[in-house]
């Protein structure tokens, strides 16, 4: 019945994303942070050299984390460990696959290695997640083999505005697709610059063929609940848990309180009474950076080919 090996590979990749639904994936930079994230209820951690807020403030070229750093984190926790490679940097992806990470994030948070092409993700056995600002971008990434989409916010800012905008974009575009006649889909696919078979699939099912998570700028339990109510199936939280501002880490107790509260808000996102409790138990939030004060060149979401 199931002899199609290529199809099985896709099912396993999307299957792990299915297991991460309703959860929080937290950025961590060492084993201790990974342990805090796990004990607070994270479904996975993203192993990084620097969190996005640090990358933003320190500048320089941001690359894949050092293998020994990722290994240290992998051995500290029992939950899945993800790591980022630069956009188009298939050699970093090859290294991460051999290292044995559970998911690779081909991420605009790192400095892109290729301004025209993304990694051919279907050539890998390890699953990939990619960011998207709109439906066309999401479907192009899925066509390249991404098994999970995260709608792009503006990473490292603690400002939720772009995460909201892009979630709404994708939802609106999907809704409008479902209203089109079959004959109209060909031309719509051309406008989206996305493959017809995926456009057709979305038009018929009313959703993306892979799980859609939200990332970038989530800093509070209320932010997590907001993106969940807008349709995100899980939430990535980067700098929002461990950073006081873009330079210094907050205390462990504070990080723990934020992590637990965001996990709970992600699960009970439709229950305002519980959301009130999660907001009240916070010991503080990241200072953040208003994205409206950034110039376009400073925005990570536009990096790499769209």
């Amino acid at each position, binding site marked *: *019945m*199931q002899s199609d090996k290529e199809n*099985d590979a896709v*099912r*396993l990749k999307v*299957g*792990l994303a*299915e*297991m*991460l*639904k*309703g*959860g929080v994936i937290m950025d961590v930079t060492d084993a201790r942070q990974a342990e805090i994230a*796990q*004990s*607070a*209820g*994270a*479904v*996975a951690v993203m192993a990084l050299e620097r969190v996005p807020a640090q990358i933003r403030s320190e500048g320089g070229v941001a690359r894949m984390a050092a293998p020994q750093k990722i290994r240290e984190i*992998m051995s500290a926790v*029992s*939950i*899945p460990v993800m790591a980022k490679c630069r956009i188009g940097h298939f050699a970093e992806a090859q290294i991460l*696959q051999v290292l*044995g*990470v*559970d*998911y690779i994030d081909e991420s605009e948070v790192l400095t892109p290695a290729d301004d025209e092409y993304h990694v051919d993700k279907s050539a890998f*056995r*390890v*699953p990939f997640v990619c960011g998207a600002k709109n439906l066309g971008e999401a479907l192009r990434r899925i066509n390249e083999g991404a098994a999970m989409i995260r709608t792009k916010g503006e990473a490292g800012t603690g400002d939720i505005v772009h995460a909201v905008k892009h979630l709404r974009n994708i939802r609106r575009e999907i809704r409008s697709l479902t209203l089109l006649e079959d004959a109209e889909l060909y031309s719509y696919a051309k406008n989206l610059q996305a493959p017809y078979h995926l456009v057709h699939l979305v038009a018929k099912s009313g959703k993306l063929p892979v799980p859609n998570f939200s990332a970038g700028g989530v800093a509070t339990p209320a932010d997590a609940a907001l993106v969940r109510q807008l349709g995100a199936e899980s939430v990535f939280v980067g700098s929002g848990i461990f950073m006081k501002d873009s330079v210094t880490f907050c205390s462990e107790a504070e990080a723990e309180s934020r992590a*637990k509260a965001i*996990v*709970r808000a992600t*699960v*009970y996102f439709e*229950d305002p009474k519980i959301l009130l409790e999660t907001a009240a138990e916070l010991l503080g939030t990241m200072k953040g950076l208003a994205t409206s004060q950034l110039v376009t060149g400073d925005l990570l979401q536009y990096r790499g080919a769209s």
Partner: protein
Amino acid sequence: MISSLSIGVLALQGSYDAHLQSLKRFSVNARLIHHAEDLASIDALIVPGGESTTMLELLKKTGYFWEELQQFVHKKPSLGTCAGAILLASNVENPTQDCLGALDITVQRNAYGRQLQSSIHDGRCKFDDSDIELVFIRAPKIVRTGSAVEVLAEHDGSPIWVKQGQTMAATFHPELTSNAIVYEKWLENIKPDITALLKF
């Protein structure tokens, strides 16, 4: 006319939606369970795949949900898949963690390794040699079964689908395949007239 069966799916995190979709093949009343009080309205419970550490944290934090869930799975039919099997076990290794003790089994977490070791296989049920598709994702292994536990399927010499009374555990994901045999056997066990539940 038989009365309809209410099946709850624990919806804290993980593949609860996939289970809900799978249950649409049967004439059962399926609903998501978010709080302890939701347990009062169901006849049986599915504990889905996901991350067991996340579910543990949420169950222990939200008031008396853990105790109520423990009481429920000791009294009523339950089905745990992957992380759900870990939660229903009586002992958990790698690392040691709390569990509900609904089945007399010891489960070892991440026993096959990481995501690159996830795999799909065609297997056979022990009771009637029928086909079963096995989707393993960062799967645990059942390393001990008590005397009251019946093994329904094995893979590589280890039990992967077990039953004790009306409760079952599977280390694979029946919610990620079109093969419905795990649900059929579990529901048949709860309500022997399974043909009345099956949708045609």
